[in-house]
């Protein structure tokens, strides 16, 4: 053990000496590894960042929620035309469900419409208007930066009130003061009674509450959508995740009754879960991760080939040096160790530089997309760069170790 440490220390000393003697070459060789490690680390932090954003985004929608819908969202084992032929879920269905359901802590009907919202000369296109009732807020984890959600009276009375997501409010009222103002949607006037605080889950796109507006469901049917053509989705919230299954079972039973299905008829509705969404997201992220690591891995591989190439050149060039070392008593192991540690050190230095570059770049990218640099990235960079060095240095080092001292000393 002591002997091994001694050889390791001396091997490293010899390698550092050799690297210092060939600075320009070392720098150029390292460049490939720098780029390789930087891209691998950047890729992995970006993927982790996207993953985190999805997780928080899904969580802000409420992770103990069920969605009773005409359509099954994921795992489409039911043919789409069969779902299309299902009867729409109606507001009346919702009311029956609500009266019969005992387990959920809250439920709300939703229907959406895509509209342009105007305030004086300003307008914002493609706002998702969520028509719902006063219970909607209880099915989510949303909070307010100002104002409140619309109440039961406003909801039942179909008053022209609206609640804005933070992004919508920011676009229409860049200097604030949205509360109590009137906006026009498709020519109809609505009063802003509340603005949500920022949820920041950008990855959810239009599903992000930041980009939505909420208003009583009757108004959507009155002004924007034909009630007979649109199916309503029921947002149902369980008390906690252990209750989700029970709520789901109860919902199936109630919905079959509400829809008047006979015992031999299949469900003409679907109960969707966050879990399915998460699963789909995780699959997507997994694919991105594998594809990304493969592509960035290729650049690292190219860097490794560069190292191997330059180590072969170095061995060839230093044939005489190897001859001298062997003549005065260096064993194969010592020569092998010398060249492998030389390539490992070059790669490690490259890896460290690459890591620093990756951190700087990820701070820059963080302004636009979420990234997350953590201890894993450091360990990843160190382990991968040393491993790359050892693997790409092995073949050249082995060639060096095997040289015949007589031949090597004669080499010009």
């Amino acid at each position, binding site marked *: 053990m002591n002997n091994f440490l001694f050889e390791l220390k001396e091997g490293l000393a010899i390698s550092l000496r050799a690297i210092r003697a060939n600075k320009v070459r070392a720098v150029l060789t390292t460049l490939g590894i720098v780029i390789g490690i930087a891209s691998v680390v950047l890729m992995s932090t970006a993927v982790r960042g996207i993953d985190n954003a999805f997780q928080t985004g899904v969580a802000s929608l409420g992770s103990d929620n069920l969605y009773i819908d005409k359509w099954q969202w994921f795992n489409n084992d039911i043919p789409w035309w069969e779902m299309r032929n299902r009867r729409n879920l109606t507001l009346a269905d919702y009311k029956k469900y609500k009266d019969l359901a005992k387990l959920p802590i809250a439920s709300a009907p939703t229907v959406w419409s895509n509209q342009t919202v105007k305030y004086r000369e300003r307008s914002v296109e493609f706002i998702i208007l969520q028509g719902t009732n006063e219970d909607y807020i209880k099915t989510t984890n949303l909070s307010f930066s100002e104002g409140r959600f619309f109440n039961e009276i406003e909801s039942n009375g179909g008053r022209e009130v609206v609640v804005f997501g933070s992004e919508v409010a920011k676009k229409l009222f860049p200097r604030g003061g949205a509360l109590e103002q009137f906006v026009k949607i498709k020519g109809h006037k609505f009063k802003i009674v509340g603005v949500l605080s920022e949820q920041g889950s950008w990855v959810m796109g239009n599903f992000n509450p930041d980009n939505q507006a909420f208003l009583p469901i009757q108004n959507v049917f009155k002004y924007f959508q034909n009630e007979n053509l649109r199916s309503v989705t029921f947002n149902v919230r369980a008390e906690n995740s252990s209750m989700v299954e029970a709520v789901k079972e109860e919902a199936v039973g109630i919905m079959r009754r509400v829809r008047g299905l006979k015992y031999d008829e299949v469900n003409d509705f679907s109960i969707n879960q966050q879990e399915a969404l998460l699963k789909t997201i995780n699959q997507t992220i997994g694919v991105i991760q594998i594809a990304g690591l493969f592509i960035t891995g290729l650049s690292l591989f190219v860097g490794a080939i560069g190292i191997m190439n330059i180590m072969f050149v170095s061995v060839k060039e230093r044939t005489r040096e190897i001859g001298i*070392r062997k003549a*005065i008593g260096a064993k194969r192991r010592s020569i092998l160790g010398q060249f492998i540690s030389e390539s490992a050190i070059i790669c490690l230095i490259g890896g460290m530089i690459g890591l620093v570059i990756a951190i700087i770049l990820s701070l820059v990218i963080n302004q636009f997309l979420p990234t997350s640099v953590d201890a894993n990235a450091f360990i990843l960079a160190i382990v991968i760069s040393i491993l790359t060095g050892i693997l790409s240095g092995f073949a050249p080092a082995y060639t060096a170790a095997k040289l015949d001292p007589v031949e090597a*000393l004669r080499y010009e």
Partner: protein
Amino acid sequence: MNIINIEHVAKIYQVGSEEVHALRDVSLKMDKNEYVAIMGPSGSGKSTLMNILGCLDTPTKGLYDFKGTNVSQMNDNELAAIRNKEIGFVFQTFNLLARSDALHNVELPLIYAGVHSAERKEKARLALDHVGLSDRMHHKPNELSGGQKQRVAIARALVTSPAIILADEPTGNLDTKTGEDIMTLFNEIYEQGNTIILVTHEEYIAEHAERIIRIRDGMIEKDERVTKRYVPKKNGSSKV
């Protein structure tokens, strides 16, 4: 006691389909504290003999007994250990590591011997002092004259206190005066009780030794005592 005992050694190289007999049948013995010159024209097999004596190569046939150990069948690593411990090489072209200073060059065999840094540096300093280069320790080879380079090489050969010093044309790349200084240094080393094998093709260099072995066509042509050995004067020659 014999340090070196070679019996019926032959070395055959395979060049294409042809066999080249570099050494045909060589037997010789050497004692401790001998000063032997090996002479011969090029192609005579003297380099091959030197490589075998220096444990850089092994014979195809025959026995090589070095200090009571049969080294003729040893593998690469075992030979490396023998070279490291028992043999000090001095080459015509010096063979120093160009990018390392004199001290590190002299230290090198001790690194492979597993000697720790402090002790190593101390020994290397003493060896450089011994050849009169205590003021050149941190000079790189390209900052040294030919004679100084060869002194560094001699210090490197001496630093492990080897059983034999093997010098291959040590004056071949030096002018006459510097060459003579180096030979004076070898004489001192010899008088201190070391065993020296000198490979040369110059008669006047060979005459510094006390015994000359002449090689021709892979055989020993003549093995003779030097009757009028040339002993160089000592006056301060180690302070070039």
